[in-house]
């Protein structure tokens, strides 16, 4: 193993890859070779570094300089300037407030420095395809401790005492789940990892699988030892090809090193893991539907009880944990339950990974202690609004969750507090909404998702959600009535009570929670045919302000239906009967002369 002078960690998370990481890496390699530095400089592709809005990202060590928004040209310049001459290339540094250049935002910016990384401890730090780097960060030490120094009961007790709760959404205590599976009679049991992440806005599981696959393998093996399973499955959705590829490679390495297979670490415990791939069905994230899908059936949920711990995969006792939950297990085994409890609250100990998206400056993944307030999360860590517009609310928990208005942003983020507000922690997706977002539209949007994804097995979910969707659609078209709003509320509560699985039971939540806080927006849609956020197309019109229009013709040229009339240097006008409300004109007007009005002009 040769020592190197510089190491470049380049983020190869899905988001950076989609914004051009590969061509940046190629440019780096080409240029480094040109200067014959390939032996002195090491390039490591890591998992997601979390700050997806800045991608592609790389950090050059030993200095720890953080370069962002890279292009192949940037990479060439950095090789020539930074690596060869030791001069930091300022144009690709992180820019803080007032355009201040910050070469090491990891240390100075709250987005990075306020984080406590447990589940994501190795993301962006190690090469996910190198098992030895994982070991160097104490990887597989927890497995050694569990197998050689602890009984299965002791392992379960540590996890129970730590208070770790399921990070997939339900928040059920993990240790308790393991205990049920352990005590459930049966000589054959299964350990399953649920990597069918599907909540819109949540991508921590993908990032962990891509960036630190070994932690999932280690945790599953520990869990299998605790419950007494010899066979495991990771169920990954097919939309995550990079995660599948890296996990497969990691599984082979783990077998080679003796962390999987027969007689693990020389003990008499044997365990192996196989990958099963989904095929585009959101409902398979529900544990009994997931089991059906592994069995090669349609992914429809089963009636509970019996629970998977009693009758799961092939009717054998099975334990299912989510990716992020498992990623917390090895550090808890090494450091003990009290260590984990130093963060978070009494009932929600530890940390949680949140995916910030929507109208917030720093989008990406952040891991923070439970109990942090929404305000800290959205303003300090997230950096607030990127445009300066007023943030209106945050939507948490995706299609099963709800909205929380800005007035409640001082609420601590934990399972109970968010439930009290009619929202949920869920899988950790946080979509920030501002004054341009219409709450009826948001509710309709999520409901459309749930209607699409309903497996059709039980009537309340299949039919009820569809009717709710139709009512919402009517309201956004300006055809709703006040009775419709009442019906929405009634129907929502009935569907919650009577659906078979989690999908149906939570599908009305986005509607009920927006009704709770934003009833006046619903009423504006039905009474005044007005959309206060000016989002619902049927309720708005685009108009040109004759005072501001200079007649540059930019809007008329871009209009796809040619409905903007006017001569050069004269005030233009939109023909409302032809306008398709695509918004192209507003984008190109440099004089701010075009605006939206609601209600629509007849």
């Amino acid at each position, binding site marked *: 193993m040769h020592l190197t002078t510089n190491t470049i960690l380049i983020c190869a998370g*899905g*988001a950076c*890859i*989609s*914004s051009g990481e590969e061509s940046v890496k190629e440019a780096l390699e080409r240029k480094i070779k040109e200067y014959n530095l390939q032996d002195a400089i090491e390039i490591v592709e890591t998992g997601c570094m979390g*700050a*997806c*809005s800045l*991608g592609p990202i790389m950090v050059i060590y030993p200095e720890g300089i953080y370069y962002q928004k890279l292009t192949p040209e940037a990479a060439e310049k950095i090789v020539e300037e930074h690596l060869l001459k030791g001069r930091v290339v300022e144009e690709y540094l992180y820019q803080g407030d007032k355009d201040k250049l910050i070469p090491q935002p990891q240390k100075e910016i709250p987005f990075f420095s306020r984080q406590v990384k447990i589940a994501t401890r190795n993301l962006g730090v190690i090469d996910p395809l190198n098992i030895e780097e994982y070991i160097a960060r104490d990887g597989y030490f927890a497995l050694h401790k569990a197998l050689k120094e602890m009984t299965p009961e002791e392992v379960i007790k540590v996890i129970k005492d730590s208070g770790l709760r399921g990070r997939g959404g339900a928040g059920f205590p993990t240790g308790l789940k393991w205990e049920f599976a352990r005590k459930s009679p049966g000589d054959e049991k299964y350990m399953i990892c649920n990597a069918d*992440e*599907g909540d*819109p*806005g*949540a*991508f921590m*599981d*993908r990032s962990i699988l891509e960036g630190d696959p070994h932690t999932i393998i280690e945790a599953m093996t520990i869990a299998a030892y605790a419950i007494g399973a010899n*066979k495991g499955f990771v169920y990954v959705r*097919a*939309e*995550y*090809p990079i995660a599948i590829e890296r996990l497969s490679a990691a599984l082979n390495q783990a077998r080679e090193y003796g962390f999987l297979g027969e007689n693990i670490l020389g003990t008499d415990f044997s365990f192996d893991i*196989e990958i*099963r*791939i*989904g*095929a*585009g*069905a*959101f409902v398979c994230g529900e544990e009994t539907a997931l089991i059906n*899908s*592994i*069995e*090669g*059936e*349609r*992914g*429809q949920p089963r009636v509970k009880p019996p629970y998977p711990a009693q009758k799961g995969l*092939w009717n054998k006792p099975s334990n299912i944990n989510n990716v992020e939950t498992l990623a917390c297990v090895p550090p808890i085994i090494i450091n003990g339950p009290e260590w984990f409890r130093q963060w978070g609250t009494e009932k929600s100990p530890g940390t949680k990974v949140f*995916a910030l*998206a*929507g*109208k917030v400056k720093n*989008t*990406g*993944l952040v891991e923070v202690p439970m109990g942090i307030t929404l305000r800290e999360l959205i303003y300090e860590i997230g950096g607030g609004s990127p445009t300066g517009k007023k943030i209106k609310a945050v*939507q948490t928990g*995706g299609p099963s969750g709800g909205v929380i208005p800005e007035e409640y942003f001082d609420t601590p983020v934990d399972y109970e507090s968010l439930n009290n507000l009619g929202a949920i922690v869920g899988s950790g*997706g946080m*979509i920030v*909404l501002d004054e341009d*977002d219409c709450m009826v539209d*948001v509710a309709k*949007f*999520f409901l459309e*998702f749930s209607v*699409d994804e309903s*497996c059709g097995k039980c009537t309340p979910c299949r039919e009820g959600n569809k009717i709710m969707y139709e009512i919402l659609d009517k309201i956004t078209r300006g055809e709703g009535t006040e009775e419709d709003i009442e019906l929405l509320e009634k129907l929502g509560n009935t569907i919650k009570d009577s659906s078979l699985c989690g999908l149906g039971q939570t599908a009305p939540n986005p509607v009920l929670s927006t009704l709770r806080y934003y009833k006046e927006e619903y009423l504006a849609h039905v009474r005044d045919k007005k959309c206060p956020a000016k989002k619902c197309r049927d309720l708005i019109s685009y108009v040109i302000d004759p005072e501001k229009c200079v007649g540059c013709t930019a809007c008329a040229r871009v209009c796809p239906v040619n409905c903007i009339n006017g001569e050069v240097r004269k005030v233009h006008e939109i023909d409302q009967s032809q306008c398709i409300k*695509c*918004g192209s004109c507003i984008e190109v007007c440099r004089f701010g002369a075009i605006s939206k009005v609601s209600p629509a002009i007849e």
Partner: protein
Amino acid sequence: MISQSEIKKIVEEARKEALEKQDILIYTLHKIQDKVENNYIPEESAKIISKELKIPLSKIYEVLTFYTMFSTKPRGKYVIRICTSLPCHVANGREIIEAIKDELKIDFGQTTKDGLFTLEETGCLGLCGVSPVIMINQEYYGNLTPEKVREILKNLKGGEEK
């Protein structure tokens, strides 16, 4: 077109990995669909799977039609999956959808006449940090604008003509 013997080979390999009777079915369907030129499961293939894995044909179609990623009809060489989840929606995803529909002159679920592109919706791809996002076959494209997406499509079309 994929030959019968190739399909048999895929099924044969899959059968070795099976633990229980049907658990390898979805995996096998993926493998075959990836190999078939038009990204779908032809009826003959389904029949071969049924015979080789001893699963009734009705059961195979039950599974095939449930999962959105499988198709029983021929699709384009490039299957474009547009994320229609909220994070992409609030990042002006609607304009991306319109640009793609306009560029290709097709709607969701349709294939262009030249057999190159099929347009589909997908749930969240988990790349919300760089929304709006689409996936073309196995590749992700993020931070899209209507202009960028038109360029990507034009490049793919151009590549085909050469």
